[in-house]
């Protein structure tokens, strides 16, 4: 991937990520998040991880965020824009971010393998094939367990929403 493209898409991703938090209008926030996801997908494409990139768009930008916007549109946006900034919550949030960043920096600094260059990867790996083989050959049992977990969760949602109706 050319470094210029990398910087453009990284800037796109981080800039719109910040816009997600800073925007007062919930629809604008949600759309900024979509653009941020698209930037992330472009970074994956640049690393020849086409499958993950496309799943990023398909699942997050195309399905999850559409549902988010769908719900947001039904809310009263004016009430959200009128809300005052809660100072203690803001300070708490900033403190957590600073602490987390500090932790991240110390961990990455002490991680020796991070400084060693990787061997060059041959481009155009069949990544859909590789992911399938890894998931179903090496990690089949955990994969099935996650499947059961999701099934239980979705049955739970159906049961709860049915109870709400009565």
């Amino acid at each position, binding site marked *: 991937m050319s470094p210029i493209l990398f910087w453009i898409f990284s800037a796109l991703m981080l800039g719109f990520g910040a816009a997600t938090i800073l925007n007062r209008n919930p*629809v604008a926030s949600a759309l900024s998040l979509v653009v941020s996801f698209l930037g992330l997908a472009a970074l994956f494409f640049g690393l020849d991880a*086409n499958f993950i990139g*496309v*799943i990023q768009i398909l699942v997050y930008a*195309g*399905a999850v965020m*559409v549902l988010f916007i769908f719900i947001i549109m039904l809310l009263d946006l004016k009430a959200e824009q009128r809300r005052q900034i809660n100072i203690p919550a803001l300070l708490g949030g900033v403190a957590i971010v600073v602490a987390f960043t500090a932790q991240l920096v110390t961990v990455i600094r002490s991680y020796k393998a991070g400084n060693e260059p990787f061997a060059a990867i041959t481009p155009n790996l*069949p990544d859909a094939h590789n992911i399938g083989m890894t998931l179903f050959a090496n990690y089949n049992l955990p994969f099935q367990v996650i499947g059961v977990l999701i099934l239980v969760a979705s049955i739970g949602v159906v049961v709860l929403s049915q109870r709400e109706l009565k």
Partner: protein
Amino acid sequence: MNAILQFLSDPLPFLVWTTLAKSAGLLGVVLVMVSYTVYAERRVSSLMQDRLGPNRTGFPTSLLGFGIKDWSPFLGGLGQPIADALKLLLKEDFTPAYVNKFYYWIAPGLGIGAAIISLAVIPFGSSIAGVDMVIANVDIGPLFVFAISSLGVYGIVLAGWSSNSKYPFLGAVRSTNQLISYELALGLSIVPLILIIGKLNLVEIVSYQVQNGWMLLPGITAKAPHLPTLEQFLTWIPVFIAFLVFTISMFAETNRLPFDLPEAETELVSGYHTEYSSLKFALFFLGEYTAMITGSALIVTLFLGGWHFPGIPDGSAAGWLGVMWGLVNIGVFLAKVVAFLIFFIFIRWTLPRFRYDQLMKLGWIWFFEIALVNIFITALIVTYVH
């Protein structure tokens, strides 16, 4: 001159200019096809309703001495798309005062952008002078089309929301529901094909069909057309189910009748683009028909052998012969797409609209389950055949 030719045949500049040429050519062909699809829709609908349809705005053939009346019932009206385009361009572009301006302006572009970008991975021909007739030969073809066209819903949602009016909003809500419901069936219904072919690359899917027969008509191969063998017949069963689910879901994804609830005229004036006029309305219109073409092209590529037709070789021969066959292959592909577009139009003027609860029931209770069960059936058959 020689230096320029030398530069143009270097690998990187060659890739750049061929890709640009292919994109420009495909875009041009698709835009012409869109305008004539609109014309075909009007003429076919009038044929089916025993009317004439637009038959006056013709090219002045009598001036050129062909002796055909300019507005004959059959040839007349071929100039109608040009007149329509001019009309849409020159109308007053009215922006209501109460809309959310920024989103109101970007919504039409999002819709058509998504529809056009997803054409990039569709192989529309074999090859001409060694250049593959596909803009982006990626290993995730169908997924790419689904991903990009799932972004098209933002155009509709934003149009409905930013219009700040009840009918567009209801249209947008319906559209979101519909797209999310049918995307699942659409994605799941092609899994059997991928199980059988074992490839996710659309170019390789087409070349598999050239070797082993079209997915939907398994006897038609590059060698000699023959009756399908038992193995081919067994794999044909899930493919046929997948084809039905995929095609019907494609109708829902492109908001075509019988699933055009987002813009049901009798209920919602004209749905999500009620507040739009002039060029912005034209963009929605173009986007809808481009999505139809993308959908038809995907169906042709996945199920009907793409550019292949028995007896017509691909463009790998040397010299002008190869170029000619390459162009013929593109013609075959476009002919198949046009046939599908006419099928789309026939359905529109044949079936009444579904009710909203019927639409949801069909998507979630029927197609989703059928597509899911079909995957298991395919897995069993593929295990048996191999």
